[in-house]
């Protein structure tokens, strides 16, 4: 391609277009004037003006998780960039592909404590997959191409590009759309054939095979392969929090989410299985709990992950496979299809059946004895929303109520902050989700504590016409911490009471949104219909009790079969 003479800002926008970017979430600032001037004069990229940089990052994150494409966020130098950090750390922890553009002071002023200067490059190094500080305009095409390539391949993640003001305003002669990449970056996606064959042998001979589906299934779009394998083998499937939606949770082989706040029988199945195929998961402590001798003690453990550094990191495994989960499943299925006989698991299938129905009964029976009002609200929501609706969550009790009682049917419809546990994530993530999927209903399951951390972006929803619905489990407490204080700290409720939180209905109305208060779970459907029919962003304030607890749970230090609060579960 012939060289073209363009300003840095124009090069940035041209390269973003070439990468297929359709939308960017951002806030302008002094050093970004050149970039925003170019954004103003074009229509290919929709820019959504956020009201806080953290929300810009979360929105890009939510957009990425729902669409499977790379999300883009923009923030100015100094405070703009430091505000972005939480959102970047969040996306990177959950391996969501995001490219962040930050403004920086002119190159000659870097390191002088200039106005709105922060060392974004060093600050964001530990919370990104990679980052760049661009020193000259000529480097922009290669940097931007590589940023998108790195963010969206291998184990996906966040790449930040720090753009000094003069790099954006200077004119340079460049070749646009370069294809060269870094010598040291070659994501290993092809699984080893010997290992996949060995896996197939182990699974075929297992009497009690179980699949543990992590977020990797969703990011590599491997749901169909997962389901085929489970059905072919007669294997049970449990998921991690990030893997929710990898398989429809009403599928007869699915036992739901495992872990600290998981389903009783998902955890039991992990303890009972004799072969465990873990796919795209990093065995976080919230999954395995702390007594590792209770985690699949009798099983041959097979771990497939695209990141070699995850193998044997948290859990010693018998058969490691480094590569893309979808390709690995494809290979395992091919080996298994060559086998004549895979039957002989009727006892295990019967066990899965009884465990599955015990869990499903708990969820379908909305007003089951022992249910809290919070349970009931989420169970109602699970019935009201269609299978395509997208649920995002805040963090804390609301998140675990959602994870436990909301039945997810499709991948990319349950968006939550898994690794970092960021309160305030759900609402801006819902904004990103709605932008990615404008035809789908998007609901943020929130807590009153979390929502107050990012609620200013109701202004974004109104201004940019993004009608998401926030359903607040409103208990006027930081519920999860309160639950722990109640259970493990002698009911000393230190600083978890939120006191006179605002009237969320009036708050919504103040922004021009729809607001409604619901006191009884059975009234939720009417309120949700009103919200959707209003066509506006909406807040539904669901009043719940401060003593509602998300149970059962594994207490701190416990093991996967040491759940407490199982009285309300059906025992099989």
């Amino acid at each position, binding site marked *: 391609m012939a060289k073209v003479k363009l300003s840095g800002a124009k090069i940035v926008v041209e390269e973003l277009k070439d990468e297929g970017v359709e939308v960017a979430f951002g806030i302008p600032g002094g050093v970004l004037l050149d970039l925003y001037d170019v954004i103003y004069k074009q229509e290919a990229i929709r820019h959504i003006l956020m009201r806080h940089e953290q929300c810009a990052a979360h929105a890009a994150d939510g957009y990425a998780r729902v669409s499977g494409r790379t999300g883009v966020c923009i923030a100015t130098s100094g405070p703009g960039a430091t505000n972005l950090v939480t959102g970047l750390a969040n996306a990177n922890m959950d391996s969501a592909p995001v490219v962040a553009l930050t403004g920086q002071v002119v190159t000659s002023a870097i390191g002088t404590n200039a106005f709105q200067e922060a060392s974004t490059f060093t600050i964001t190094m530990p919370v990104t997959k990679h980052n760049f500080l661009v020193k000259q305009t000529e480097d922009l095409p290669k940097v931007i191409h590589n940023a998108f390539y790195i963010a969206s391949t291998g184990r996906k993640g966040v790449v930040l590009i720090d753009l000094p003001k003069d790099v954006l305003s200077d004119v340079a002669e460049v070749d646009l759309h370069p294809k060269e990449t870094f010598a*040291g970056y070659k994501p290993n996606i092809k699984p080893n054939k010997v290992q996949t064959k060995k896996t197939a042998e182990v699974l075929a001979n297992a009497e009690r095979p179980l699949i543990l589906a992590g977020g990797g299934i969703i990011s590599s779009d491997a749901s169909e392969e997962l389901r085929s394998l489970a059905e072919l083998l007669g294997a049970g499937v449990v998921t991690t929090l990030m893997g929710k939606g990898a398989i429809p949770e009403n599928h007869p082989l699915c036992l739901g989410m495992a872990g600290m706040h998981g389903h009783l029988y998902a955890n039991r199945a992990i303890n009972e299985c004799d072969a465990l195929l873990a796919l795209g998961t990093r065995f976080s402590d919230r999954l395995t709990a702390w007594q590792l001798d209770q985690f699949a003690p009798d099983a041959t453990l097979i771990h497939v992950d695209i990141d070699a550094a995850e193998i044997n990191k948290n859990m010693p495994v018998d058969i490691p496979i480094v590569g893309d989960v979808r390709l690995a499943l494809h290979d395992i299925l091919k080996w298994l299809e060559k086998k004549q006989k895979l039957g002989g698991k009727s006892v295990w299938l019967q066990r899965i059946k009884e465990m599955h129905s015990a869990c499903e009964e708990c969820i379908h029976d909305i007003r089951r004895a022992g249910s809290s009002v919070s349970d009931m609200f989420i169970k109602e929501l699970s019935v009201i929303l269609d299978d395509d609706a997208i649920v995002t969550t805040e963090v804390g009790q609301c998140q675990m109520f959602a994870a436990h009682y909301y039945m997810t049917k499709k991948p990319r419809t349950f968006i939550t902050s898994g690794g970092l546990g960021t309160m305030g994530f759900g609402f801006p993530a819902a904004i990103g989700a709605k932008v990615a999927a404008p035809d789908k209903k998007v609901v943020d399951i929130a807590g009153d504590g979390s929502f107050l951390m990012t609620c200013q972006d109701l202004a974004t929803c109104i201004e940019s016409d993004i009608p998401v619905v926030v359903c607040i489990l409103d208990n006027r407490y930081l519920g999860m911490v309160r639950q722990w204080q109640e259970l493990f700290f002698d009911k000393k409720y230190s600083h978890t009471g939120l006191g006179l939180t605002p009237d969320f209905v009036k708050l919504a109305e103040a922004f021009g949104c729809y607001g409604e208060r619901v006191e009884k779970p059975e009234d939720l459907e009417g309120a949700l219909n009103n919200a959707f029919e209003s066509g506006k962003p909406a807040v539904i304030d669901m009043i719940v009790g401060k003593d509602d607890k998300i149970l059962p749970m594994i207490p701190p230090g416990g093991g996967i079969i040491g759940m407490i609060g199982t009285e309300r579960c059906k025992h099989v």
Partner: protein
Amino acid sequence: MQTRIISLLVEDHPGVLTRMSGMFTMRGINITSLTVSPCETDGLSRMTVAIKGTESELEKIRKQISNLIEVVKVVDLRAEGAIIRDLCLLKVHTKDSDTRLEVMLLAESYGANIMDATQDSVIIELTEEPGKIDRFVDLMQHFGVKQLFRTGLTAIGRD
């Protein structure tokens, strides 16, 4: 605890050293020796890092380091297989001519070079494997080491 030497081929970019050392910081691993220098390929640098830790810690960090975008190659140099060298410069106090003679004889027996001498001190250079340098420095402590500089180790694997 064991010592492991990792040789890294990295892109010669600003920030690569911070990125690499940050990886160790995050995991609470102390770097005992670090050298950075140009190598046989333009645009790349070689880092030789010595770290102490348990076998599993060291294996985890090796994989994490390999994940860094600007790290082109990671070679794990097991101490027994590699040729390891460290360069040491030390200024030894010599209170009289007898002492000076003794210091110079000892230096010669270690294969060290005398770089400079004054009335009351001698500057010695020794390039050797680190253990031998340790022994030589211990020996010189007896006379009084005024200053000690070591470059940190560098290592090369055998074919």
